């Protein structure tokens, strides 16, 4: 179960960040922020390799004792970061991948909204709904 989902723009500022439970938000913000370094490291390590679907998913960025952080970067350098509970060992890699794919699809739908200006914070109800479903789905 994802406890925090964040969408980071190309310039490394957050477009969307949401976590549950909502008390320790600052901690999650901090974790996402530190994970950006790891993301950048992984992107530069790929170098000039052809970016295909597999390489959009970055995998486990780093584990802490309570949480695991996963990353995904799109071809336009928009990053998705997901923090999941470590105690939930049932979550397999494929599930994380499919969650990221759903995120990516919802993100492209948001981009297609003519009223959304790229670079704004994401305020779409549909996107919120999808993230909520991801956060409470696997318990």
């Amino acid at each position, binding site marked *: 179960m994802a406890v925090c989902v964040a969408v980071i723009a190309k310039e490394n500022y957050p477009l969307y960040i949401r976590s549950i439970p909502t008390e320790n938000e600052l901690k999650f913000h901090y974790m996402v922020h530190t994970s950006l370094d790891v993301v950048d490291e992984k992107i530069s390590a790929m170098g000039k390799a052809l970016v295909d679907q597999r390489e959009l998913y970055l995998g486990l960025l780093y584990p802490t004792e309570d949480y695991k952080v996963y990353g995904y970067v799109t071809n336009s350098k928009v990053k998705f970061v997901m923090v999941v509970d470590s105690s939930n060992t049932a979550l397999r890699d494929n599930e994380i991948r499919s969650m990221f794919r759903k995120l990516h699809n919802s993100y492209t*739908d*948001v981009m*297609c909204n*003519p*009223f959304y200006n790229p670079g704004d914070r994401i*305020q779409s*109800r549909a996107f919120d709904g999808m993230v909520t479903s991801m956060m409470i789905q696997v318990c």
Partner: protein
Amino acid sequence: MIQDYCKLRTPPSGHKPGDREPCYKSSLCAEHSGSCSWAALRRGVTSGTVGCCGSAFIARELPSSAGLRVPWCPAASCAGAVSRCRSILNAEGAASWVELCWEGLPSGSVARQGKAAGTMSRQANRGTESKKMSSELFTLTYGALVTQLCKDYENDEDVNKQLDKMGYNIGVRLIEDFLARSNVGRCHDFRETADVIAKVAFKMYLGITPSITNWSPAGDEFSLILENNPLVDFVELPDNHSSLIYSNLLCGVLRGALEMVQMAVEAKFVQDTLKGDGVTEIRMRFIRRIEDNLPAGEE
């Protein structure tokens, strides 16, 4: 009798099998007899590089032709037998052809006469080819149009009026194209008009078929219910544009088109999925018949 060339007419005298002459007969074959794909088929070759538009042909059996195998062009833009594939016919400006519909096989194969004369053939081609245009591009274009209008006018009511005006201009031109492509006759009453709008016009231009409900007792008002509106895919109205009627262009189109066929109507949205309703509903009201523009000589 198997021959080296597939002609279905007698060759000129002096012609010997194997001579490289254009394969005559059929409107189905236009290749040199020696390399004619029909001939190749008869020789037992089931596929080869003899192609109309450069593709390799494959042998297909048409259910309607009882076992006859025709050389088929598998190219995506082609929809017919190799020698007479649509690419060639278009290039030649053919006025009529036999269109062999490949979709839906094995059960749905249809051989029908694609009869068209002059410019109508161009329109018929345009009609079938326009289905392949991306609907996302259309949606995104309309979205860009609306947002630009919002930025220019900054007032939702003005934007709605502009969209209606633009729709009106589109409608007065679109009706000509619609009447040319659909060949519907004159409608005798408003109910027929409603049917034509919902089942022919919307289907032709937007690919959806709205349903008609809520007829008023006098028969001059009805509602068009659209389950999904292709103009509003991906769109979410922000809170500062809550009174914007996003698809108002459609109302203008309906108004303009019907005005050109001597009907003054009013079209407005009463339900909109963007505002939270389940479906999109357009209410059409017949105002009056426009009589002024009959030429004087007819009275």
